[in-house]
């Protein structure tokens, strides 16, 4: 909270410096996950993966179900132990409740007995850092994402898209330098998804947070990311890293651009034999 200097001012961009020295780098070294099953072959959820993500980068993990993308994300978040290999975030080994890391889940996981505001403040309440400044920051964030009118509403009074917006605000309240997102927009309709894509990019640009974004939606992965990690299933593994050289800031028109479609097509082509193979 020490970086909160000018709360209440209109310039939101200056409010959101990441708290933990703004180091949002992630190093993944031969990280793998295997599930042992009694009297059966073990399941290789993820074959060893090497990946370096620099601070402030936006990386999408894309692939079919069972490709280990969520497994990888949860190991980065410290919510799942690796079978082998190492992962460090902001220079420290990954662990649950790493102060630099925040996780947004597929379901909004807003607690239904808490108002939007109380949900947003939950991380600060748990960390014991809830004060007037945090509340003001929450208000600023809600304002930025267009939920000011709803801070005293309960989750069920909100649409699915608004619930995810509130969840995103909650994941930003501790000023993380790394934001891990597990298919946060998967349950939304296409229009809402695209709208939230743009909002997420806007936030990312303002906060200069590292984002690792899991999705099974190839165009979404390309539209958002600097790099796309293409993953395949059975066994779960990283196939290829694809650089997205579309200019920033991204906008709606780029979804029609030849380069965008080329990248989407390339990723689809990488995944196609895999998906067909798996179907047999």
């Amino acid at each position: 909270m020490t970086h909160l200097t000018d709360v209440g001012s209109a310039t939101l961009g200056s409010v959101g410096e990441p708290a933990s020295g703004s180091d949002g780098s992630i190093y993944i070294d031969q990280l793998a996950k295997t599930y042992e099953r009694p009297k059966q072959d073990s399941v290789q959820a993820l074959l060893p993966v090497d990946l370096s993500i620099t601070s402030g980068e936006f990386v999408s993990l894309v692939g079919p179900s069972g490709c280990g993308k969520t497994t990888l994300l949860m190991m980065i978040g410290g919510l799942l132990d690796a079978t082998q290999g190492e992962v460090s975030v902001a220079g420290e080994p990954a662990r649950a409740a790493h102060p630099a890391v925040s996780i947004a889940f597929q379901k909004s996981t807003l607690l239904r007995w808490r108002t939007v505001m109380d949900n947003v403040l939950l991380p600060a309440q748990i960390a014991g850092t809830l004060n007037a400044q945090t509340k003001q920051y929450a208000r600023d964030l809600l304002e930025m994402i267009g939920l000011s009118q709803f801070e005293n509403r309960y989750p069920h009074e909100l649409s699915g898209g608004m619930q995810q917006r509130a969840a995103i605000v909650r994941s930003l309240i501790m000023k993380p330098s790394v934001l891990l997102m597990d298919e946060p927009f998967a349950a939304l309709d296409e229009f809402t998804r695209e709208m939230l894509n743009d909002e997420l990019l806007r936030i990312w640009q303002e906060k200069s947070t590292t984002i690792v974004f899991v999705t099974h939606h190839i165009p979404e992965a390309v539209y958002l990311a600097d790099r796309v990690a293409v993953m395949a299933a059975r066994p779960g593994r990283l196939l290829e890293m694809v650089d997205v050289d579309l200019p920033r800031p991204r906008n709606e028109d780029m979804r029609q651009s030849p380069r965008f479609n080329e990248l989407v097509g390339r990723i689809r082509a990488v995944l196609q034999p895999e998906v067909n193979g798996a179907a047999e």
Partner: protein
Amino acid sequence: MSTSTATPRSAPPAPRTGTAPRRRGWQVSTRIQAAVLAAVFLIAAVAAWQLAVTLEVTSSLILPAPLDVADSLRAGLTPGAGSWWGDIGVTLQTTTIGFFIGIAVAFVLGTLLAYVEVLRMAIYPYVIFFQTFPKVAIAPLLVSWLGYGLTPKAVIGALLAFFPMFTNTLAGMSEIDKDELRLMRSLGASRMQEMRLLRLPNTMPYIFAAMDVALVMSLLGVIVGEFVGADAGLGFRIQDRTAFGDTASVYAVLLILGVLGTTLHLLMVGVKKAVLFRE
């Protein structure tokens, strides 16, 4: 979970959309119609009852006249010697004690078992056994152990109040959304914080659904206990009046019991509305 788990309203209702005025009008008139119909049912039932008595379908020992019941009720509720207020007080007091002991023990045990899996697996077979066991059957035994006083009745009441509360506490504490648990873990919540901020509020709707049932069960247990052996209470009064062939008074006491049960239920609904978050 077991079959006797009182289910809370799990999914919150969908946000109300604008109702067409015509439909709204229809709803209001339906409510009025229902109220009128309910009154008609009552009048018809009492009229049929009076008719049966007038035609002497059965003896007045089986079916006393409505007016006789009303007279008995008035006499019983008139303060002074022979009034039933003492009995009402005893039954209410015993029910309340049994209820609170039952739900308190159930809550603690349910929470404990939700947390400690090995204990849950060890104890659950016994829980099933006692849950399906007709608990009022041990009332005579309890009275012979604990005497004619309030204690054995409170114990039966507590025993009956225990199970709905126990199963629902266990359900509410353990049936937590996996992502919500992961969220708490990712935020570094301690076990106490997880309890206070997630499990307990998650359990509240289950608890209130259970308390509603538990209160009525407790009353049931107490009445049965009073049947077995007592010198006061509404259960005792029913036995006493039956022995005297004073059927009109028995009917009057039953009426009081009905009102008592409904009042307790409404009280519970009120508490629930005041405490639970808006749905």
